[in-house]
């Protein structure tokens, strides 16, 4: 294959169109089979990529388009980790919603989404990045708006407008940045690696903050987070998995790929602000989660808290913080992905997701209880599981950069079990109250167990031996650290 | 000569404009539009002939064609409104109000 990276985003695009075209015509199961086939093949291809070439550093020669825009794709450890996560979670989400009788559009949307996300993580041209970035909104808009639960329209529009509005700040920043580069060098270029503004002048700070707002909406960082609970709550389970598992990471990826490399000076200068905001996120998300009565909303707020830890580690600009924060992106994708999937399984059976709608599920659905408990522990950050590694390293990094912020963020660590374990207790341990739907929730079947084994297995493997996984972020960590 | 041409052209143009702005019957407004177009075209043809420039004459021809097309669409719309039982008067058609 001469263009292995182009294949990564065109194959799912093609798959999506094929799924749509071949739908109808007497084979109702064909679309989902086709979609799963494409997702699985792509995952295997992605996984095999470094095995074949011996490294995950890969670049395509690229192609000059107009206005200094260049079609250039490349892969490094950071990109590879996220590409792999995207491929894995797309496959998992399709498999997870296997029994839901959706139309071909549903299955195709996931492939379109995968294509856009791949593009985001592969692009090395700012313009290309922005195109993929915006393109990812479209399939997600339809996933939420067409196949979501009761209040889906509102959530979809809110999600789209909010994140689109955030993207405008990103575009503004990108245009100013390219303009600035032209002023300095006389060249029009959107190339990410060539863009670097060392000085910390007011314009640099302005561009940094503008783009940071664009990324912060996606992460999401307080006070730009309120689209997230609505979108998560209304999205179908697989949509939530992709949203939390991959799409939120786009914002952090932007920090790692664009902001910190381009503005090394500004990044260091704003460290207290970004770090402080991240720590605040971790605490605020936890408090927000404690007050929730809807299982999905609760997990959505826990995402806010977790992403706060990710951002804090990255913002610390220490190698351990960057590596830990980046690993936490993967961890959060696995753990929260598993949690959303399981809430989806529960919802599929009972059409409820309130904390008080269930009780004693650990007795009636022990396998579900086991996996849910395991994912909760991972999310709480119990050592030996993946959640701990990222949290620990992020905090350790911030401890070296700015101890006060790290100490404050410890409160967030302390609060994590205070919202997850009571929720677990209410759903899985409490006696079912009157009007409970607990009896409708049957235990997991073989397909669901297999999915959750895969996710839980990774959680434990990363937790027990995180070092090989940290290698993905080795280059980014050593390049970006102060 | 130039003065005459400009005089006729401007006269037609402003009469057309006055009709368009002041009258409320759609048919008359369409007529006004045509007058404005005709007025402009006179200048174009005059200068096209003066300079022996085929491009300008071509443009004049294009404007004629557009004016014809516009008349067709406009008349069709008016007819449609009439058929629907609406009065073909501008004040009666206020769907566009914000």
């Amino acid at each position: 294959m001469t263009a292995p990276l182009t294949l990564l985003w065109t194959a799912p695009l093609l798959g999506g169109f094929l799924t749509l075209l071949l739908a109808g015509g007497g084979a109702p199961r064909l679309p989902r089979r086709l979609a799963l086939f494409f997702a699985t093949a792509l995952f295997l291809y992605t996984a095999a990529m470094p095995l074949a070439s011996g490294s995950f550093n890969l670049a395509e020669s690229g192609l000059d388009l107009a206005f200094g825009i260049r079609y250039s794709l490349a892969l490094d450890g950071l990109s590879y980790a996220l590409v792999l996560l995207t491929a894995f979670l797309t496959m998992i989400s399709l498999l997870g919603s296997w029994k839901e009788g959706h139309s071909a559009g549903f299955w195709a949307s996931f492939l379109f989404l995968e294509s856009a996300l791949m593009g985001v993580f592969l692009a090395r041209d700012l313009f290309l990045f922005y195109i993929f970035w915006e393109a990812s909104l479209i399939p997600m808009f339809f996933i939420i708006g067409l196949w979501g639960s009761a209040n889906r329209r509102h959530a979809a529009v809110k999600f789209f407008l909010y994140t689109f509005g955030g993207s405008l700040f990103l575009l503004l920043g990108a245009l100013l940045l390219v303009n600035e580069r032209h002023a300095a060098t006389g060249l029009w270029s959107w190339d990410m690696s060539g863009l670097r503004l060392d000085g910390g002048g007011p314009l640099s700070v302005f561009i940094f903050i503008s783009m940071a707002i664009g990324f912060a909406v996606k992460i999401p960082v307080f006070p730009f987070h309120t689209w997230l609970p609505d979108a998560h709550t209304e999205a179908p389970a697989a949509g939530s998995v992709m949203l939390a598992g991959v799409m939120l990471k786009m914002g952090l990826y932007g920090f790692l790929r664009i902001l910190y490399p381009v503005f090394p000076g500004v990044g260091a200068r704003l460290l207290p602000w970004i770090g402080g905001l991240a720590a605040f996120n971790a605490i605020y998300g936890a408090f927000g989660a404690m007050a929730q009565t809807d299982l999905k909303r609760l997990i959505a707020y826990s995402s806010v808290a977790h992403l706060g830890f990710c951002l804090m580690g990255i913002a610390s600009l220490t190698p351990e913080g960057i590596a830990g924060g980046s690993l936490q992106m993967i961890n959060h994708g696995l753990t929260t992905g598993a949690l959303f999937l399981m809430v989806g399984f529960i919802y599929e059976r009972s059409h409820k997701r309130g904390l008080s709608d269930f009780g004693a599920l650990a007795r009636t659905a022990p396998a579900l209880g086991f996996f849910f408990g395991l994912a909760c522990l991972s999310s709480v950050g119990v050592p030996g599981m993946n959640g701990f590694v990222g949290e620990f390293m992020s905090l350790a990094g911030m401890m070296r950069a700015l101890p006060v912020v790290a100490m404050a963020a410890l409160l967030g660590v302390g609060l994590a079990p205070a919202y997850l374990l009571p929720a677990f207790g209410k759903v899985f341990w409490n006696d079912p109250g009157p009007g409970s739907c607990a009896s409708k929730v049957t235990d997991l079947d073989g397909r669901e167990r297999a999915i959750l084994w895969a996710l839980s297995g990774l959680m434990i493997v990363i937790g027990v031996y995180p070092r090989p996984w940290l290698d993905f972020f080795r280059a980014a960590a050593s390049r970006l650290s102060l | 000569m130039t003065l005459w041409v400009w005089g006729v052209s401007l006269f037609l143009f402003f009469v057309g404009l006055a009709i368009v702005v002041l009258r409320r019957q759609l048919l008359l407004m369409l007529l006004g539009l045509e007058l404005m177009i005709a007025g402009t075209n006179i200048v174009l043809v005059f200068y096209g002939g003066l300079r022996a420039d085929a491009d300008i004459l071509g443009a004049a021809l294009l404007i004629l064609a557009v004016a014809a097309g516009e008349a067709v669409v406009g008349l069709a719309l008016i007819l449609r409104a009439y058929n629907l039982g609406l009065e073909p008067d501008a004040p009666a058609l206020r769907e566009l109000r914000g």
Partner: protein
Amino acid sequence: MIHAPFSLLLVLIAPILAIVAGGFLYTFRPRLVHWPMLASCAVVFLAALRLAYLVSTRGAMDVLLYRWAATWSPGSSWLVDFGLRLDGLSAMMLLLISTVGGLIHLYSVGYMEEDASFGRFFLYFHFFYFSMLGLVVADNYVQMYLFWELVGTASYLLIGFWYHKDTARRAALQAFLTNRVGDLGFLAAVFILMAIVGRGDSNFTDLFQLGASINPTHLALVGFLLFWAATAKSAQFPLYFWLPDAMEGPTPVSALMHAATMVTAGIFLLARSWPLISLVDGLPQWVAAVGALTAIGSAIVAVTKTDLKRILAYSTVSHLGIMAMGIGLGKVGGALFHLLTHGFFKATLFLCAGNIAHALHKPTADVSEAGGLRKHMPVTFGAFTVAALSLAGVFPFAGFFSKDAIIGAALERGGVMAVAGLLIAFLSALYIFRMLFLVFWGPRSWQHPPERPHEAGTVMAAPVSLLAAGAFAVGMFAVWGHRLTDLLLRGWAGSAESLSIPGFEWPSFFAGTSMLLFGAGAAYFLTTAMPDWDPAWRASRPWLARLFETDFYYKSFVSGVVDAVLAASRAIGEIFDSRVVDGAVEGTGPAVRALSARFSAAISGSLNDYLWWLAAGAAALLGLALRTL
């Protein structure tokens, strides 16, 4: 290749294999899950013996297992290694955990026999045991923290084992959250230490060598944070309150938790960190003061409790206070010795309480429901008596030697500490003899159980008897020829003086034994001579009953704090977030619409109006064009 004694690796490998095997068995034959666990216990016990021998002959060793996490940047590296530390301290802990823990495993086979979740119990239980083993052989603070949290997690699962009970669910949550509050201190200390070391983590040996060169302020912070962590796990004031409620789990869990795992972790942490803690000015005094306060307060409350397991739980809090006091007084050896003997006698007492509850077919029993069991349960009675005498500190029972070491140190220190030491000796005797008299002698009140109380079966009676034998003999064995001190000295980074255990000294013997006699006499007087006294004061002085019920109103204070946190979360999550933050977002839609209503007034819908605008615009443009010409 890892160069480690095979037995050291076995300590971790055997339980892991057992849990994996048990997990497989659980899906097919849940009734057989206990077999791999028992085998693993036996292996670990033998390994612990071998390791104790190795340590005493060859000395301490650090083994690097694998590099857990690492990052690189030009000029600096950051890494966390996982390894195993074998020294006298960990060998002693291994012996304690494997002996007591193994016997409790055996006991559980009988105790949990009729429980529907038999298999699940053993999985959790062995996980608990494994976590504690991992904790004591940890080679650095990060690794120790890892197992420290796993211990907490396992305790959450086990305290909430009978999750159909509301109280069990609450207790489990309370235990986990309280421990988490303490863990934050541990975590913060780990981070500060890592920042001090500068290249990530360091094993204990290297870290303690830095010792005096560390900035005293940082060191003090680390010391206090570690102590804070210890107060949660080892149930010291102000974080002790989870432990008495934690008896909601099955009795073997309480036994394991109080005797060998969990609560001993905090004391172990203090002992492990002694080389750092002893360097901090004033910290040992704090530890001693908090220990004494906890010991006295909980002993007083223990006297007023009527539930068997609750009395024992407060007694554990009290004894942990004694150990903390011992450490604070600089007698780490004495404290560890007491940890050892306490493990034996407290396990015995809990298992006896379990026997009684089992005999009465209840999850736990009240002293008023027991009574006069002496004749019906001779083995339990015998074991309980031996353990009670050991707890009270009767010569030559094990508890005597260990308690004596700490009381002796308190007397030496004099002043408040001496008074506290004597008071504790008096109170421990009081509550344990009160319990003994009420349960085995008092009037029988169990007229209506389904059948007469019966002695426990062999599988339960045998471990209890063995533990009781330990509760009698361990003290003499350890003191004789300074065996324990010699063992602990291997690889000890603190002063040798801190490990000295006096053995037998007349002054403390007299002081301790006279207090013991007072306590026993008072207990006899209150239970047998004035049996009505106990209900009488509760009825006549409700405020006093309430005072003890709430642990001197401290529990009310804690629940107030919890309520405040919940209220804050509601204020943030329900009101601030949805109304203010999201309100601003949702408000943009209506705001834009309102704004557009203003402008739309100009859009009249009349074609002529539009054309006027058009003409005006064209004219303006034309004017502009003419001006520039």
